[in-house]
């Protein structure tokens, strides 16, 4: 059974919470006591229908203001797949949450209000989905019930988005459009009887049909060492195992590897999981690797294939960055950079540009980046990081910046 992670994004009031509530409701993911709680809460609000948005608007402040202020994780499953939805708020000031929620997603669900069509937020969301290299985008034109399920209205919105979509997508990204009504369950898991003119998949059908991630096993092999296992017991006297989660590619027993940054080479003697020997392991597997020779390897080092001459070691490089903190990014200040499990000091030598993700333009001569702003930077690190170009190998190309004094995660970067 595989796991598909979805990020949802929308603007205020375009019905995102209702859409998720509907998905849960129609996949039988809500138990009777929760539905009863929903009924009484809906009644208290004076509504004569089930307010499915109450299922996900979890925090006291959110219920008071009727908005979503943080990333919530929601789960449902079908017989073939487990789904994890990162429900992220669509307010301008919460772009940071959107990037956060989308960072693990393979599918981005973007909601558009059928009455309003394209708004500023739609452009922002498409740009972020592209920056994060999310392979699949589904644009849901919601609230079709409020435009009398009018096909012309749907087609017009689709047409108005065409040029924007063309500007933002990258090769390999699939974008599809769906007319839906979350409130009335049209085209969510069941075909829309109110829209006979629509012949495509339902939303769930689209998700179930999406194939993903197997390409990760063919990406360059990268194994960041998290922890060195040395039991020093009688049975495992000289045992030295390198524990970690393969970030991309495939490793096999017998592969000649190189440890970075030291450059020492050795051969994989075994790949194990809880003592069980494997002949190979792929991206996403948490394993223990042992080598045929004693090599000096510690946490933060990376194993790559010795044949991989391109394996990168970066100390001075360019990146896109999304700023996540109230205190603006300032060049010259030292931050801690975390790439995978590797931590090193970093200095931003220059901000090269600020991107306007709505207008799709950029401005130079920038001296700071504020919360929710996206830009280009040049950085230098104290120790080299073993990161790939994000667009080529997303699972080994991102890093976070941590403020040394507040310890907050203040930025997320994507190696250019």
């Amino acid at each position, binding site marked *: 059974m595989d796991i598909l992670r979805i990020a949802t994004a929308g603007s205020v009031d375009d019905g995102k919470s209702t859409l998720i509530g509907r998905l849960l409701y129609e996949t039988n993911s809500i138990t009777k006591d929760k539905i009863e709680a929903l009924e009484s809460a809906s009644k208290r609000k004076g509504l004569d229908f089930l307010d499915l948005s109450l299922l996900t608007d979890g925090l006291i*402040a959110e219920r008071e203001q009727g908005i979503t202020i943080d990333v919530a994780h929601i789960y449902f499953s079908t017989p073939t797949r487990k789904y994890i939805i990162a429900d992220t708020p669509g307010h301008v000031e919460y772009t940071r949450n959107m990037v956060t929620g989308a960072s693990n997603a393979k599918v981005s669900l973007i909601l558009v209000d059928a009455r309003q069509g394209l708004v500023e937020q739609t452009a922002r969301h498409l740009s972020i989905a592209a920056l994060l290299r999310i392979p699949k985008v589904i644009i849901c034109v919601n609230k079709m019930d409020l435009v009398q399920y009018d096909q012309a209205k749907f087609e017009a919105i689709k047409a108005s988005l065409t040029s924007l979509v063309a500007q933002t997508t990258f090769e390999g990204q699939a974008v599809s459009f769906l007319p839906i009504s979350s409130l009335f369950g049209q085209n969510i898991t069941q075909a829309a009887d109110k829209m006979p003119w629509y012949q495509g998949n339902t939303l769930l059908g689209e998700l179930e049909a999406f194939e993903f991630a197997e390409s990760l096993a063919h990406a360059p092999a990268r194994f960041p060492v998290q922890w060195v296992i040395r039991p020093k017991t009688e049975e495992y006297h000289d045992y030295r195992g390198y524990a970690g989660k393969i970030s991309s590619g495939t490793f096999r027993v017998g592969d000649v590897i190189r440890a970075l940054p030291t450059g020492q080479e050795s051969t994989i003697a075994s790949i194990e999981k809880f003592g069980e020997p494997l002949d190979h392991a792929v991206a996403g597997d948490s394993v223990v690797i042992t080598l045929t020779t004693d090599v000096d390897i510690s946490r933060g080092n990376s194993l790559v294939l010795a044949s991989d001459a391109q394996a990168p070691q970066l100390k001075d490089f360019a990146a896109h960055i999304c700023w996540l903190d109230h205190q603006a990014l300032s060049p010259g200040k030292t931050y801690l950079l975390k790439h995978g499990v590797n931590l090193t000091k970093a200095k931003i030598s220059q901000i090269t540009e600020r991107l306007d993700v709505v207008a799709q333009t950029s401005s130079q001569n920038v001296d700071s980046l504020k919360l929710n702003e996206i830009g280009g930077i040049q950085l230098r690190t104290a120790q080299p990081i073993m990161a790939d170009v994000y667009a080529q190998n997303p699972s080994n190309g991102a890093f976070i910046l941590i403020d040394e004094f507040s310890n907050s*995660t203040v930025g997320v970067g994507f190696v250019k």
Partner: protein
Amino acid sequence: MTNSTIKDKIGQFPRKLEDESIYIMREVAAQFERPALLFSGGKDSITLVRLAQKAFFPGKIPFPLVHIDTGHNFPETIEFRDWLAKETGAELIVRYVQDSINQGKAKEETGKYASRNVLQTVTLLDTIEEFKFDACIGGARRDEEKARAKERIFSVRDDFGQWDAKRQRPELFDMLNGRIAVGENVRVFPISNWTELDVWNYIKEEKMEIPSIYFSHQRQVIERDGMLWADSEYLNKEADEIPFEATVRFRTVGDMTCTAAVESDAVEIDVIIEEILSAEISERGARIDDKRSEAAMEKRKQQGYF
């Protein structure tokens, strides 16, 4: 849900979840000086112990198991706890809510809904201070409850153990930032992304031992608010609440005073999973402590609860 889809979901554990949780366990060991695994004897914390074993094998689990004993636990849970610690060779630390009460730091609740669930927080915070734990691993899952759906994997708490939903650090990709100031500590939730069904399927696939009260057995119970409560010396009963024998099991294991039983004949794990899939009551619906108010969990978390 039809029976055929129910059958399809049994024994279907998404293996990637285990890989992610093992990764988190290793990050805890590497990033913190004095981590601990908070062990309650329930299925979620038993799952955590298995994940910790796997993460460091053939080495030992490099942190202790800590149990905050309310004194109102099911005896079967305590027995199981001691067995598991022995079985895994892990260090076990037990601290008692009764001691906090004796020291005047916590006050026993009164009335028919009295429980020690809220009192645990006091003992937990004292234990964290006593051992200077900087990270406490817990078995909370985001699917349990709405406030938990917004919880991070590394959840930073201040000196008073408090959780502030608005001050949470963003967690991007799988990078976990465990840096904290002196006095702060982190609650870590390695099975955040598991659902109740995932846990049960994992227990089944891994052939793990669990306390006997999860399976059907005979027990003296009373009926209250449409639920079955285990009769015990700790339960404050009203005159008309007469205990009777029933065939029950527990879906979740908390204190005897705040965990409701369900009527069930299930003695095999497959049947339990089927019951969960067709259940009409969600898992936390059987936790009486959450019913106090709609925002009960969020309020307890702000005060340092798990």
